[in-house]
């Protein structure tokens, strides 16, 4: 009997917790949604840290806009496009969603952008890398905020090919993001007189990379292009070190986040070139934000988490400026106004949805160069937004060449 009471009690508690998480947006609220990988391989890149960044932005904005309370909905897409898209649709239909902030995973983001077009809700991609989001897959409601595969390639691949790394072999994550990143990088490499010697497509979340790495080594290429992300990136670089491959080939981190460098340690990661849209230790403004963020999370923010803060503020400012949450009016305002905050200076959202802002080419410090915790990058070059994101391609019907 006691056991039964306990079970019923537990079940009731669970159900009440679930409903508390799902429905805390009142009818009149301005509702910001965040759909991201909260439990999988990309969970540290944006994840709960990004939710904290949204909360900070809302608090800094004053908690209300147009006299309405600002509330947040959060869901885990588990890296499954169908889950992301159906959650987005559900919020649009039932919870009065006004804007969606989308986290990691290009595949999921492409699926969600279709929902954005159908439901006419602004969709700000913050964690996904695939440049197709503002090209083949663009919509009138899409914004690509932090970085994309084009900018990563223009930063990292250009730097390496110009310092002598002419022949490349790619280790590519076998889904939309990996192939787009590889294509972007090889285009840049070839434009600069380099050559692609081969590529191997690695299933996502492989448990061992050594076999693929030996193939890379067998190609005789000078550069090992890592067109993957998250734990896959960390584990492949770790194995490359272990097998002595980094002594013969120069590894190129086509996408690395500061959390990856933190888990690998500088001993393994030193000397890597990488491109980032934000670094916590860039200037006084970024340090001020990061100090507050660190106090809440115990970690320095990644570029995605910095981007979440900025994007939330940018959206709220636009709503305030036009005096409504009407999607079309807000989108027009977003594409009209310059973005100036701790994340971007003079950033602007182009007709195709790309948020054009400066990107930073960094090199990972050696353990000796690093003077304090999280002192990981030295700045090699500030790439102007136009150089980083390149010209409008014409692939998005909204933005003819």
């Amino acid at each position: 009997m006691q056991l039964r009471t306990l079970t019923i009690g537990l079940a009731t508690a669970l159900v009440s917790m679930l409903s508390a998480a799902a429905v805390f947006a009142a009818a009149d609220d301005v509702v910001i949604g965040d759909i991201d990988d909260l439990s999988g391989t990309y969970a540290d890149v944006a994840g709960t840290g990004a939710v904290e960044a949204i909360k900070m932005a809302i608090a800094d904005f004053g908690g209300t806009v147009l006299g309405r309370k600002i509330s947040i909905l959060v869901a885990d897409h588990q890296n499954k496009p169908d889950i992301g898209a159906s959650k987005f649709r559900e919020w649009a239909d039932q919870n009065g969603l006004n804007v969606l902030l989308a986290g990691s995973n290009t595949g999921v983001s492409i699926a969600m952008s279709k929902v954005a077009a159908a439901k006419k809700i602004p969709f700000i991609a913050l964690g996904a890398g695939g440049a197709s989001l503002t090209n083949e897959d663009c919509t009138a409601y899409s914004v690509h905020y932090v970085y994309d595969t084009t900018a990563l390639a223009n930063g990292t691949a250009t730097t390496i090919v110009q310092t002598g790394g002419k022949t490349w072999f790619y280790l590519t994550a076998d889904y939309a993001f990996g192939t787009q990143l590889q294509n972007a990088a090889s285009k840049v490499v070839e434009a600069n007189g380099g050559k692609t010697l081969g590529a191997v497509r690695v299933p996502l979340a492989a448990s061992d990379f050594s076999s693929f790495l030996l193939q890379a080594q067998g190609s005789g290429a000078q550069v090992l292009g890592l067109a993957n992300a998250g734990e896959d990136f960390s584990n492949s670089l770790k194995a490359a070190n272990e097998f002595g491959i980094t002594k013969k080939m120069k590894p190129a981190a086509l996408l690395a986040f500061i959390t990856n460098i933190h888990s690998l340690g500088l001993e393994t990661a030193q000397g890597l070139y990488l491109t980032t849209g934000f670094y916590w230790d860039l200037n006084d403004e970024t340090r001020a934000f990061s100090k507050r963020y660190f106090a809440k999370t115990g970690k320095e923010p990644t570029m995605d988490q910095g981007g979440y803060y900025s994007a939330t503020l940018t959206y709220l400012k636009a709503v305030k400026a036009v005096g409504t949450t009407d999607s079309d009016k807000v989108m027009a305002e977003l594409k009209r106004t310059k973005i100036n905050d701790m994340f971007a200076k003079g950033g602007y959202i182009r007709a195709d949805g790309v948020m054009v802002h400066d990107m930073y080419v960094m090199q990972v410090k050696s353990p000796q160069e690093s003077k304090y915790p999280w002192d990981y990058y030295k700045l090699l070059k500030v790439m102007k937004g136009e150089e980083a994101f390149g010209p409008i391609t014409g692939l998005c019907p909204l933005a003819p060449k």
Partner: protein
Amino acid sequence: MTEVFGVPVAVILGQLMLGLVNGSFYAILSLGLAVIFGLMGIVNFAHGAFYALGAFAALLGLQWFGINYWAALLLAPLAVGALGIVVERLFLRHLYKLDPLYGLLMTFGLALVIEGTLHQLFGASGHSYPVPAGLTGAFDLGFMILPIYRAWVIAVSVVVCFSTWFVIECTRLGATLRAATENAPLLQAFGVNVPLLVVATYGGGVALAALAGVLSAPVVLVGPLMGNSLVIVVFAVVVIGGMGSILGAIVSGLVLGVVEGFTKVIYPEASNVVVFVIMALVLIARPAGLFGRE
């Protein structure tokens, strides 16, 4: 350079070696699963989580108490094995009379709880565990560079697998264990403490998973999801070997590691499904598995 089917021999030898390394992990993990299933009839879905716990035990032991790798190799399996015993006493023992499905669901839920807790406490992006001082560096085998640590993994795996097989198949203790699976009430009538045997078995199987976790800590980043993708493959390995067959688990673990290694060269995109294709084929041809009793 000599070639076989257009692939240089050096590459084949290299992949064979790497396949054996991965196969060693599969073998230790599937061995634990096979022991637990064979003697208890529990499909232990929490195996991957215990593997991750083993790696975390080594990592935290090093960071918090300065316990080195060699001690962790012994202590982490003991600690996680003890946890396994607690789990068996608290949860699993209520399920023996029920359909195996209940054990599967119970352990699956347990895996989610363990992985979720690790994720909450330590984040998703993983932590580095240093290669122990005596095992750094690499052998130059001519056809490839083999890190000494990976060779060590193969050696440990062979010793552990063989001794487990020996204990279960060739000793009096093993005979008693096997008798317990055949006819527990009769054995109990002879005065053998069967519940104690069962709890020791589960603890032992879980300790094997933790041992594999400690072995893998210097090779991959230690993260909550490290066992997640592995455990599914290992289940396929056990099914191919024959559920509950000790020898089947060891042999198919090593062989499938090698098969997977070659797939990574010939058609890399298929490397994460090849084991399941083989599993399907084996199930059609020999539903009890290659080494299972019909």
